């Protein structure tokens, strides 16, 4: 009886305490991101990038006098799970914004949740064009990732310069693989009409044995291969391709998009990397083009306690950066105002200024491209010269 009275008193007291001023409450950001299974390769470092940004900005007092609080959830790279997590973050954790998702299945699914709840959602990694296609676009969805159109066309520009006519493609049979391959093929045919697509292989997402596909492809005698086999899967694919002499047969006329040339991939393969191929990456610690980038890499290296910090952290970092700048610009944390502030917003990111277009809520995020070489400074292959391909001219 006594205890119950105490409880009631406490409850009443809790209601009597005047609501704390907005200034003291943190701005809550929900981040559904794959943190288990193979996609955690990117999900985890991207989350760390967002965390680093939040720690840094909180140390400076946050925005509008309020600190950020990041709530991460494992979306398991599954659209249904990502939706469930996003709903829970909004309803239970009362997050103010969503920044997150990785695969091209999760992004569009969470976008629908953002639309229903009228909450700003910034997608830092999914590339499928469908995320910001006219019929899917709504006032609350934004993307700071690259797109399949940008990536496919950037690769086509590089392949068009090679002395090759017979080109083949190797991609996973799902949204990202199909979209980026289509963009590549269409653009290549447009800028170099003499090119012939001699073979297209479509292994299932996550394939472990590429030999049958490589054999079938090489039987068609291509002179160049475009691949979008990504992440750890590229390690498996390229090891098997190298063993049967594919890269030699192609005279290294091979381009791997889907971040085949990240420092992480090159590092994990060491001398086994098919040095001489072309590839891309969102970031590379050795790029060091600007003072801002060098500074970012130094801070990240310290934060991750890694001499060669991840190239994926940048996407979580930039996603949060856009959100913080938009809140500042809107002078509010209301999603409606922040969404308006994001339109046309330009942010000085570690990779240079990026702008979110009003037309399709898409940032002009390009990627680093280059031919891989061994550099005596590092125990693995790097892109050299590494070039940031500005995507503005590839965006419709």
């Amino acid at each position, binding site marked *: 009886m006594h205890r119950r009275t105490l409880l009631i008193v406490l409850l009443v007291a809790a209601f009597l305490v005047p609501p704390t001023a907005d200034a003291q409450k943190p701005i809550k950001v929900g981040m559904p991101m794959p943190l288990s299974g193979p996609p955690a390769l990117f999900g985890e470092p991207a989350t760390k990038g967002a965390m680093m940004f939040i720690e840094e900005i909180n140390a400076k007092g946050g925005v509008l006098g309020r600190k950020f609080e990041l709530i991460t959830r494992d979306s398991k790279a599954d659209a249904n799970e990502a939706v469930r997590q996003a709903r829970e973050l909004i309803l239970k954790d009362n997050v103010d914004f969503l920044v997150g998702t990785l695969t091209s299945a999760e992004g569009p699914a969470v976008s629908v949740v953002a639309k229903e709840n009228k909450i700003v959602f910034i997608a830092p990694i999914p590339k499928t064009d469908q995320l910001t296609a006219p019929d899917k676009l709504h006032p609350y969805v934004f993307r700071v990732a690259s797109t399949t159109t940008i990536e496919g066309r950037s690769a086509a520009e590089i392949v068009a310069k090679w002395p090759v006519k017979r080109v083949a493609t190797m991609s996973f049979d799902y949204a990202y693989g199909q979209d980026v391959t289509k963009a590549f093929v269409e653009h290549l045919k447009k800028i170099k009409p003499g090119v012939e697509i001699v073979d297209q292989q479509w292994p299932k997402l996550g394939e472990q044995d590429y030999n049958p596909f490589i054999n079938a492809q090489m039987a068609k005698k291509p002179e160049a291969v475009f691949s979008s086999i990504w992440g750890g899967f590229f390690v*498996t694919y390229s090891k098997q391709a190298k063993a*049967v002499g594919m890269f030699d047969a192609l005279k290294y006329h091979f381009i791997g998009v889907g971040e085949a040339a990240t420092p992480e991939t090159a590092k994990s393969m060491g001398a086994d990397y098919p040095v001489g191929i072309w590839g891309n990456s969102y970031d590379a610690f050795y790029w060091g083009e600007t003072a801002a980038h060098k500074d970012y890499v130094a801070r990240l290296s310290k934060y991750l306690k890694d001499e060669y910090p991840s190239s994926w952290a940048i996407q979580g970092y930039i996603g949060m950066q856009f959100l913080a700048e938009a809140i500042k610009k809107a002078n509010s944390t209301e999603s409606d105002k922040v969404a308006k502030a994001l339109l046309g917003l330009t942010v000085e990111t570690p990779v240079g200024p990026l702008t979110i277009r009003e037309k399709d809520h898409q940032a002009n995020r390009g990627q680093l491209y280059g031919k891989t070489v061994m550099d005596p400074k590092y125990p693995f292959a790097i892109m050299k010269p590494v070039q940031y391909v500005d995507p503005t001219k590839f965006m419709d």
Partner: protein
Amino acid sequence: MPDPSFVFAQSVSGLTAAMFLFLIAAGLSLIFGVLRVLNFAHGTFYMLGAYATYQLVQWLGVSGGRFWLTAVGGALAIAALGGLVERFLFRRLYGKDELYQLLFTYALALILSDAAKMIWGTQQKSVSRPPELTGAFHIFGAIIPHYNLFIILLGPAIALGFWLVLQRTRVGRYIRAGALDRETLGALGVNVDALYTGVFVLASFLGGLGGALISPMRATTPGMDTEVIVEAFVVVVIGGLGSFWGTFLGALIYGQVLSFGILFFPRFSIFAVFALMAAVLIVRPWGLLGRPLR
């Protein structure tokens, strides 16, 4: 008509894949055949075998024949882990409801794979091919890597050795008897507990060896355990659960169907494998070489 050199290369890649699947599925089939437990965590042993080998390679390197040391060492580590798991956990499952067995082995798979993630992180790991096998043969216009050939020869060698042990040795007779009637075997004075532990250790060794030997051909990443367990299940379902040569045959069929499937159904070759499995289940639910369960 496809180019003969291509057909040859394709069948070789199918054979390589088949031998790996055999190594893994054999352990799965052995545990089911003798212990009557469907071990969902077997794929995790395969993954841990790859990680253990990677770790040993980090310490020892792959040159000068040391790859073989690391591969066998990795497999032995998994065998030891298997011994502990059987002795302290698995033993409580025998004769229990199948649902409990499945839940337990599934939980074990989740726990072990999370433990692997804590130790080795989420980044992909890669092991180089042993320098003595990095070359390739040029046969009939196709390039066959030495390492693949080694795997193709190793598979039947292990199968044969295994079969000889099962058929010609006293331990083999005990194992076969244990599969048929555990209680009678115990009544005849055989230490069944030790026998079961031995079988589990052997099966774990095979799974670990599969992971160890595959590490030069693939990336070692979290999640490779669940991928392989599905394939291994398909193999044993086609071949017959608990049937030794059935597993071998199932693996061979799986490899070739997948390899040549992409010629006929370029985007649905995995479908061909599952269609085959469904057909086998309809016609012979106990698998090609399996025996109907009571």
